[in-house]
C-alpha cells in the first residue's frame, strides 16, 4: 500500500512539475504561441536586398533577447506582444535575415522567455539572456513592474533594453534624467491623463475620483493624473488603490459613493478593470467611468460585456485604425501591421502588440545600421529615431526623452455596443 501511495504521490508531483514547467518553457524558435494558424508567410519577399548583386552570404545570426508575460495576470498584454514579435521574426528570417553593416545577411536568433507576470522571474530571465544567451539587445517586459525590475540588470551589463510597458519610471530615473540603457515604446501616462483632462474640460467636470491598481503602472498613472489636475485645476476628491488581481472593489466603490466626484478615473488592466467596471455598474453609479489605456484589449469587452457600454479611455490609434481620418500620418503603417497580424493569427492586433512591433522594428533598424554592438545600438536608438512612424506613435527619441511620443499619438475611444468607437476631439462634449 505504501508503495502505491508513493507511486501516486510521485505521479501527482510529476504532473505538478510538468504543469509548472509549461509556464517557463523557453522557446528559441519563434513559433507563434497563439492559434494553430500556419506560420505567417509574407506575400512576395518585401524589399529584397538593394541592388541586384547575388544575394549576400549569410553571417552569424544576431541574438536578440525577448521576455513577455505570456502567462499570469498580464498575459492579455504579453500574448499579443509575443505573437507580434514571433511574426516579425518569421518575416525577417523568411526574407533571409537582416543585411548588416558588414554586408552579410544575418538571421535573427530570438531567445524568448515567459516571465509569468512576475518581476522577480523577469530579472532572472534578463540575467540569463545577457550572460548565457549573449543577447545584444533586449525587448519585452509586458508589465511595468517587470520592466522596472530589470533596469539595474541591463544598466550594469550595458545592454540596451526597449520596454513595452508604459510607466514613466522605466525610462526616467529619480533625478529626472533618462535611464541610459533603457527605452520604451508605449506612451507615457502623462499624455494619457492630458487626453482625459481634455475630455473632462469639455464636460465642465472639476471634481474627480482616481482609483488605480497598486503597482508601478497604476501608481505612475495616478501620479500623472495628479500632475495634470494640478496644472489644469481639477480637484481629486478621492484617491485610492486596489491590489493587482483583486476582483472585489466594493470597499473602494463604497467610499467613492460617499464623495461628490463627477467622474471616476480608473488606472487598471483588463484583469481588474473588467470586474471593477461591472461592480461600478451594479452599484448603480450615475457618474461616468473613464479608464486609461491599460484596458485597451478585447478581453476587457469580452469579460465586462454589458457593463463596458459607454466606457471611455485614451489609447494609441491602432485600436480604431479604420475610423481614423486619412490625413493621419500613421494610418498606412497601422493598416499594414493590422493586415499582417490578421493574416497570421486570424484576429485583430491589440495596442500591446503594437508596442512590441515598435520595439522590434527599432532594434531591427539599429542592427541593420550598426550590427551586433550593444553600445552602438543604444546610441543609434537615442540619435536616429526621428520622425519614426511606428504603431504607438510618431517617435522622436532624444537623450532627454527615451519614449519620444506625446499626446498627439493618442485618441479617445468609447466602447459602444461591444466595439471600439473613435471619438474625434471636436465631439468630446457630446460623448458619452
Amino acid at each position: 500500500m505504501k508503495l502505491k501511495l508513493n507511486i501516486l504521490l510521485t505521479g501527482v508531483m510529476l504532473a505538478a512539475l510538468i504543469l509548472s514547467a509549461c509556464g517557463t518553457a523557453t522557446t528559441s524558435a519563434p513559433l507563434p504561441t497563439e492559434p494553430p494558424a500556419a506560420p505567417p508567410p509574407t506575400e512576395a519577399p518585401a524589399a529584397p536586398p538593394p541592388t541586384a548583386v547575388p544575394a549576400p552570404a549569410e553571417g552569424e545570426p544576431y541574438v536578440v533577447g525577448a521576455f513577455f508575460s505570456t502567462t499570469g495576470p498580464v498575459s492579455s498584454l504579453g500574448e499579443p506582444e509575443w505573437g507580434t514579435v514571433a511574426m516579425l521574426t518569421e518575416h525577417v528570417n523568411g526574407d533571409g535575415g537582416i543585411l548588416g553593416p558588414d554586408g552579410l545577411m544575418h538571421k535573427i536568433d530570438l531567445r524568448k522567455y515567459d516571465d509569468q507576470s512576475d518581476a522577480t522571474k523577469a530579472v532572472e530571465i534578463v540575467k540569463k539572456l545577457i550572460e548565457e544567451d549573449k543577447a545584444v539587445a533586449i525587448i519585452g517586459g509586458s508589465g511595468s513592474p517587470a520592466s522596472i525590475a530589470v533596469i539595474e540588470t541591463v544598466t550594469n551589463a550595458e545592454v540596451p533594453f526597449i520596454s513595452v510597458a508604459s510607466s514613466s519610471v522605466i525610462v526616467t530615473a529619480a533625478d529626472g534624467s533618462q535611464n541610459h540603457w533603457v527605452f520604451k515604446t508605449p506612451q507615457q501616462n502623462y499624455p494619457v491623463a492630458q487626453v482625459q483632462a481634455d475630455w473632462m474640460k469639455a464636460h465642465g467636470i472639476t471634481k474627480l475620483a482616481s482609483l488605480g491598481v497598486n503597482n508601478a503602472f497604476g501608481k505612475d498613472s495616478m501620479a500623472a493624473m495628479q500632475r495634470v489636475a494640478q496644472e489644469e485645476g481639477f480637484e481629486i476628491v478621492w484617491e485610492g488603490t486596489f491590489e493587482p488581481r483583486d476582483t472585489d472593489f466594493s470597499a473602494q466603490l463604497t467610499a467613492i459613493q460617499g464623495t461628490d466626484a463627477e467622474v471616476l478615473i480608473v488606472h487598471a488592466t483588463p484583469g481588474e478593470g473588467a470586474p471593477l467596471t461591472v461592480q461600478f455598474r451594479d452599484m448603480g453609479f450615475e457618474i461616468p467611468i473613464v479608464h486609461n489605456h491599460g484596458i485597451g484589449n478585447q478581453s476587457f469587452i469580452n469579460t465586462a460585456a454589458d457593463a463596458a457600454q459607454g466606457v471611455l479611455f485614451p489609447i494609441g490609434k491602432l485600436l480604431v485604425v479604420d475610423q481614423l481620418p486619412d490625413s493621419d500620418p500613421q494610418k498606412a503603417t497601422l493598416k499594414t501591421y493590422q493586415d499582417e497580424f490578421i493574416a497570421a493569427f486570424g484576429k485583430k492586433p491589440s495596442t500591446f502588440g503594437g508596442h512590441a512591433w515598435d520595439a522590434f522594428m527599432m532594434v531591427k533598424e539599429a542592427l541593420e545600421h550598426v550590427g551586433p554592438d550593444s553600445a552602438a545600438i543604444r546610441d543609434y536608438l537615442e540619435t536616429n529615431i526621428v520622425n519614426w512612424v511606428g504603431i504607438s506613435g510618431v517617435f522622436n527619441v532624444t537623450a532627454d526623452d527615451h519614449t519620444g511620443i506625446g499626446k498627439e499619438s493618442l485618441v479617445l475611444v468609447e466602447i459602444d455596443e461591444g466595439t471600439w468607437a473613435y471619438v474625434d476631439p471636436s465631439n468630446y462634449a457630446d460623448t458619452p
Partner: protein
Amino acid sequence: MTFTEQLAQFIVSGITQGSIYALIALGFVTIYNVTGIINFSQGEFAVIGAFIAITVAQKVNLFRGQFDVELEWPVPVAALIGVGGAVLVGVLLYRLGIQPARHASTLSQIVATIGASIALRGLVLLAWGTDPYRIPPFTQGKPFKILGAVITRQSVWVMGLTVVVVVALFLFFQYTLIGKALRASAANPGAARLMGINTRRMGLIAFALSAGLGALGGIVITPVTFMTYDRGLMLALKGFVAMIMGGLTSPFGAVVGGLALGIVESLAAGLISSGYKDAFAFAVLFVVLLVRLGGVFKRGSGEALERAGL
C-alpha cells in the same frame, strides 16, 4: 454617503464574500470530520465548478482556441451542471487519490490533496487560460438599498443560497440515515464500522458533498468577482482560516468563522487599505491559533489538531 452607510456597505460586502468562505469551510469541516483529512484542493472544487458552469452558460473557447463551446444554456442549469461536474471531480479525487492511500498517514493524504490541487489548477489553466471569466447574474435588475448600503441581486442570491445550504445540511446530518451515518463515522470510525456503516463509502460521500459545496460557492460568486484559474488557492486558505476560527470540527463554527472573516477583510480593506485585506485574514488566523489552539467554538484539547497532523 455617511460613515454609518459606508459601514453598512462594508458589512454587506463582507457577508457576501464571507458566505463563500463559509461554504468552502463547510466543505473542509465535512471532509475533516469524516476522514480526518484537511482537503487542500477544496478551493479547486470552487474553481472547477465555476468554470464548468461558465462553459455551459456562454460561448467559451478551450485549450487556446482548439475547441469552441457554444451551449449558452440558462444560468441555473449551468450552475447545476457545474456543481455536478465538481462532485464528479471530488469523487474521482477520493477514488484515485485518497482511497488508494488509506493506509498511509493522514499527513501523507493531506499532501496528496495539495498535489491534487496543483494538478487541478494546472488543468484549469490549460483548458481555460489566464483570462478572468464571468457569468451573468442569476437574476437581472437594479440593486436593493438597505440602510444606505447597496445590495446587488447576486449578493442576495449568495446570502440566500448560503442560508438554504446551511439549513439543508443541518437537516441532512440530523435526520437522514446517510447523514447520521456520516456523523457516526466522524464520532467514532471504529464503532461505526462495527455497526455496519461502510466508512469508506462515507469518505466518498463526504468528498462529493464538499466538492458540491465548494462548487456552489465558486459559481454564485462568479457574477460578482469573476473567476480566474488561480483563485482556488486563496479561497482554500481563507476557507481553512474560517474552519480554524470555527473550531475545526463544527459546521456551525465554520459558517460563523467564514462570515466573520469576510467582514474583517471588508472592513480592513475599506477603513485601512485594500493592501491589508489578506494580511488581516491571516493575522486573524494567527491570533486564533495563538490564543486558543482549538478555535473559538471548540475549546480544544489540541487533539483535533494532532489528528490533522498540525
